[in-house]
């Protein structure tokens, strides 16, 4: 662990030095000095300096730069600590060398706020995404470049579940599309990131739910039934979404007539959506995803209900419930894959309805699996 850390820190420093070196005026040089400072007091971690650079102008003037490296992003609130550490280190060094060095913090990623704090503290910085601010007074040099404002490597930690909208969105993608497909190809289709698709795929690979041609290759197959069961263990229709119960005293039919004319963004899920393709018992409870249940209820003329409600308006865990919907007789239905999950994990006779729907899905895979539009 320590060794890996050292390697990555060394690499971070070298990368930063190269990036800054490339932006210096002609004949300026940035050198990495092999200093004995590190070895001088090895037991005093606080005083250990990660690296020392030397900036040298064409006229021969030079200055030292004390380099502090953090292999993890530095939180803005910790910038103060870093600054005092650096100053303490330079103080002990100055005593020996009698010079005033500049400071730079090198990290994988520095947020806009962290950078702001560093500027305030008079510390230069360079991160792996290309955010660089390099200021030396003598010889005078100033370099500033813009990198990422969001941490691009945040998603690299392994995923532990399909909970959360972003993971569920990918699960829906894996469920909806007909493999094989590339990681990036799927990410583009479902407006997710390749990193997120990768993480979900990695979670599902050990169980054989997803299989890949090679570790970094395309997804060859998805066992969608196993995926549905796996997803259902992390998803709970009533808990993952926000449910509100309403009454339409004239019955669901009256609601549907108005729904068709209301101009709302919605998608019908639950019993009514399943009944459309796999009739089970006559549905009673209309379950409908809407952006904002209160507003929707108002425009549909529904009344709040504690008991006896016949309409569930559901604020979804993720807008994916409005994507890849299906139209029938003027109504918008959530995709059958979403309906299945909602029923599997839903209350009442939902699980039984899910069984009937699953049966239909097994027989009609060609009808609901979406082919990838692009071929790679």
């Amino acid at each position, binding site marked *: 662990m320590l060794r890996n850390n050292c390697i990555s820190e060394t690499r971070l420093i070298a990368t930063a030095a190269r990036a800054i070196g490339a932006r210096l005026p002609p004949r300026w040089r940035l050198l990495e000095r092999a200093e004995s400072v590190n070895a001088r007091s090895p037991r005093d971690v606080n005083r250990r300096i990660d690296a020392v650079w030397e900036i040298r102008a064409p006229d021969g003037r030079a200055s030292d730069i004390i380099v502090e490296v953090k292999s993890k992003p530095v939180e803005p609130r910790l910038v103060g600590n870093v600054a005092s550490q650096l100053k303490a280190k330079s103080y002990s060094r100055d005593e020996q060398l009698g010079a005033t060095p500049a400071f730079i913090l090198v990290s994988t990623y520095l947020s806009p706020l962290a950078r702001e704090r560093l500027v305030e503290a008079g510390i230069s910085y360079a991160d792996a995404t290309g955010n660089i601010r390099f200021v030396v007074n003598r010889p005078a040099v100033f370099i500033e470049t813009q990198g990422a404002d969001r941490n691009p490597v945040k998603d690299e930690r392994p995923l532990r579940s399909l909970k959360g909208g972003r993971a569920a969105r990918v699960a829906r993608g894996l469920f909806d599309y007909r493999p094989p497909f590339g990681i990036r190809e799927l990410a583009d289709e479902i407006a997710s990131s390749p990193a997120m698709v990768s993480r979900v795929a990695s979670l599902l690979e050990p169980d054989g739910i997803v299989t890949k041609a090679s570790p970094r290759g395309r997804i060859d197959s998805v066992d969608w039934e196993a995926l549905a069961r796996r997803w259902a263990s992390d998803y709970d229709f009533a808990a993952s979404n926000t449910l509100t119960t309403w*009454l339409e*005293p*004239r019955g669901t*039919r009256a609601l*549907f007539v108005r729904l068709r004319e209301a101009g709302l963004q919605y998608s019908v899920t639950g019993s009514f959506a399943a009944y459309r393709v796999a009739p089970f018992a006559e549905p009673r409870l209309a379950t409908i995803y809407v952006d904002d249940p209160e507003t929707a209820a108002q425009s549909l003329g529904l009344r709040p209900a504690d*008991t006896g*409600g016949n309409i569930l308006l559901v604020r979804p865990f993720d807008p994916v419930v409005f994507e890849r919907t299906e139209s029938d007789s003027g*109504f918008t239905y959530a995709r059958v894959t979403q309906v299945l999950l909602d029923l599997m994990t839903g209350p009442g006779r939902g699980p039984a309805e899910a069984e009937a729907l699953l049966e239909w899905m097994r027989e009609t895979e060609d009808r609901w699996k979406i082919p990838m539009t692009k071929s790679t």
Partner: protein
Amino acid sequence: MDAGNGGPMEDSHDQVHIEARETLLDAVEALGPHSEAVILVGAQAIYVHTAPTDASFALSPFTYDADIVLDPELLGSSPAIVDAMSRAGFQLGDQPGLYRRDVGPQVDLLVPEAVGGPGRRAARLGVHGNRAAMKVHGLEGALVSHTRITIGSLVPGAGRACILKVARPAALLVAKVHKVGERLRDSDVRRRDPVAKDAFDMYRLLRAVDTPDLAAEFRRLQAHDVSSRVTSEALVLFRDLFSSPSGTGTGLVVEYVRGLEDTDFVVESSVALSRDLLEATSRH
């Protein structure tokens, strides 16, 4: 699905349903020259108004009897009603106004109490006698509020049809409230049995008809001499029976749908629609 168009019931009539409509048409034909005095009330009239929404129910709402109001003012002198009915096979039983054939549903000829003359149960109809029709309290609204509708045979391919006055929803509701109220007061428990179905018929009307339309019609009934009293009485009774989940009327509706519909929903729905109507009728 539930939200489909039209009335599926119109396409899939069971035999009982077809027979009931045939009996009604037979009775109207038998009354021939008196047809201007005929107003359809009761379950078959309710069905005319609720057919488009009845498909929402898991249970078939239809009953068999043909309930007909006769407006004495529009009744001619011949043919004699009892004879005309008899010629069509409808025989009077023990009670005035209730006719039966050997098979099939009953035909009730009824006269609103306010225009039925003196006496307790039999309507006094001059040349037609005291047995031709039964006097009923609460049907007065049918004389004031009705609409002409073509009522056709439900036998596949049959072209038989007649244009008939059909009592409008508020008049039907008023009549049903009175019927339910009376039955509940009846000491004869056997007569109380079928009353849950009447309560359910009322609920079907509330579900099918827009509240503002219903309320406007109620006001018309209240404004008319012949129906004003029964309508005001009906609203008081209606509030008693239907405006709360614990109301007797609400309980009857639930009793009728138990096992077939979601009773929690029916309670909430029935109370909500009843309160809407009461609120709308109290506004002027």
